[in-house]
């Protein structure tokens, strides 16, 4: 397979540019002094970042997204890690069904899940007046990522290691805490970081479940972009991208990007 054929290289390069261009454009817009982006760029300015820091709606939304993401990641890790351990170590029959059930939130269309939860919370919980339904929605949608990352880590543990600990005198619980948990730690952290990123960027669930008066950063951007064009949104977007990119690099350092398999 001749991978160096110029036509292939050219085509593939164009595809990569296509993939990355919009994000790059947003970053350029955020540092562009003028309101409209033109080529060649007219200069460099951080005024839109000052505007962002001064805009309460954006900064409030940013912090809200951050807290929400941390909480969702925490609970997703709390529930997803034992489920992964169960799946890899204990479950014998019905493995495919269990796996499908746990992964279903990311297999089903997100907007449908959001609608389903909207109906559910309005009929069962009395509405979305509190943050709880939103948090639950985010945990549901991010738990599968923790599950995937932790199962991957478990499969990477050398076989017989836990049995060896038992033969050396460790009770099952000591073996779990001294051997199993430390070995899956990087998987749990990777899963939690992925969960945070997915929660931070989420639109559909947030849109339908958020209580009146609150907003997440993506929703705020969404509202702005529907009615107005303002490079302050570009600054907000770039900060968001910088945050998720940093976390991605952290994941790569801890565990390697190949862990992110869907």
């Amino acid at each position, binding site marked *: 397979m001749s991978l160096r054929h110029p036509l292939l290289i050219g085509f593939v390069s164009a595809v990569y540019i296509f*993939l990355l261009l919009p994000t790059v454009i947003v970053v350029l817009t955020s540092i562009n002094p003028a309101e409209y982006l033109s*080529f060649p760029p007219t200069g460099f300015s951080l005024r839109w970042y000052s505007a962002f820091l001064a805009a309460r709606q954006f900064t409030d939304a940013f912090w809200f997204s951050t807290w929400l993401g941390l909480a969702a990641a925490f609970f997703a890790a709390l529930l997803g890690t*034992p*489920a992964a351990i169960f799946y890899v170590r204990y479950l*014998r029959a019905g493995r495919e069904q269990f796996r499908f059930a*746990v992964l279903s939130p990311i297999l089903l269309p997100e907007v449908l899940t959001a609608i389903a939860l909207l109906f559910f919370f309005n009929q069962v919980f009395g509405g979305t007046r509190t943050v709880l339904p939103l948090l639950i929605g985010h945990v549901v949608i991010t738990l599968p990522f923790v599950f995937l990352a932790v199962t991957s880590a478990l499969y990477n543990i050398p076989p017989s290691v836990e049995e060896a600990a038992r033969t050396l005198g460790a009770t099952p619980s000591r073996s779990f805490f001294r051997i199993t948990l430390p070995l899956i730690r990087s998987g749990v952290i990777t899963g939690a970081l992925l969960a945070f990123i997915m929660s931070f960027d989420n639109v559909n669930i947030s849109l339908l479940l958020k209580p009146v008066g609150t907003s997440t950063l993506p929703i705020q951007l969404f509202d702005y972009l529907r009615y107005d064009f303002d490079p302050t949104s570009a600054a907000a977007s770039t900060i968001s991208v910088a945050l998720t990119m940093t976390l991605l690099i952290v994941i790569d350092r801890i565990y390697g990007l190949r862990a992110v398999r869907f």
Partner: protein
Amino acid sequence: MTKKPPSRVPLRHWLFALPALLLVSVFIAVPYFTIAVMSVRTPSNTQIYAPGFTLQNYIRIVGDHLYLGLLADTLLYAAITAAICLVLAYPTALHLARTKSHLRGFLYAAVLSPLLTGVVIRCFGWIVLLATQGLVNDALRAVGVGPIPFLYRPTGVIIALVHVFLPFMILPIMNAVEAIDPRLEEAARTLGASQVTVFRRVILPLSMPGVQSGVILVFVLAASAYVIPMLIGGGRVQTMVTVIVQQLLGGFLWPFGAALALVLSLAAILVLIGFTLLTRRAMRRLA
């Protein structure tokens, strides 16, 4: 080695899985069920639903050209998106799976990172690019082509859909090609096959499961997209999903929205079943 049959899992081990299972059953299975139930309730203008059950929602949808047209548009956009994604993704996935370049890690990150950038932000970039005063039209003007309206048109929406969901086509195909043992290709070459033949007879058929997964994935994602049609379409390009969400947020006709959602899901499933059956026959013929 004597195979061990599945032994009973002790109850205390199920406690590990219980919270996650509970979460999924209470907050996925039950809510999805409520969509179905909601779709046969009586719609009302003043509350979520009025008492009583009815099939009028479905009757209204099936009988109205507007909604059927909307359904057709939605599925059409999704199909076009999947097709374009396939064309763009296949060579890219092939290259990524087989390349030994030291850039491989970067390229993989380049495919993955858009997924971790919010869809709103990516649409933002397209708005800047595709506006009449935007960069693409600036470039077109420079070569003498008049400004092409992308925004608020299906064209722009499809471009954005393709962009956002392209990684979901690249990754499954890449995985499928990676799973092909390179020695199969080598064996074919030693048996006298040219590069083209190797591709046609070995790689293409074996990559089909990945192609299938990718097409299904992108089709479903594109058919259920909300943010992209809303932002790029600007309210002038309507899909089933944008109409449904507007029903739910803006008004009270939830039962009707639920029925629309189920009709869309059913239609999409039918299309995908048809697609799977067709490709299964094609796969058999290729082999």
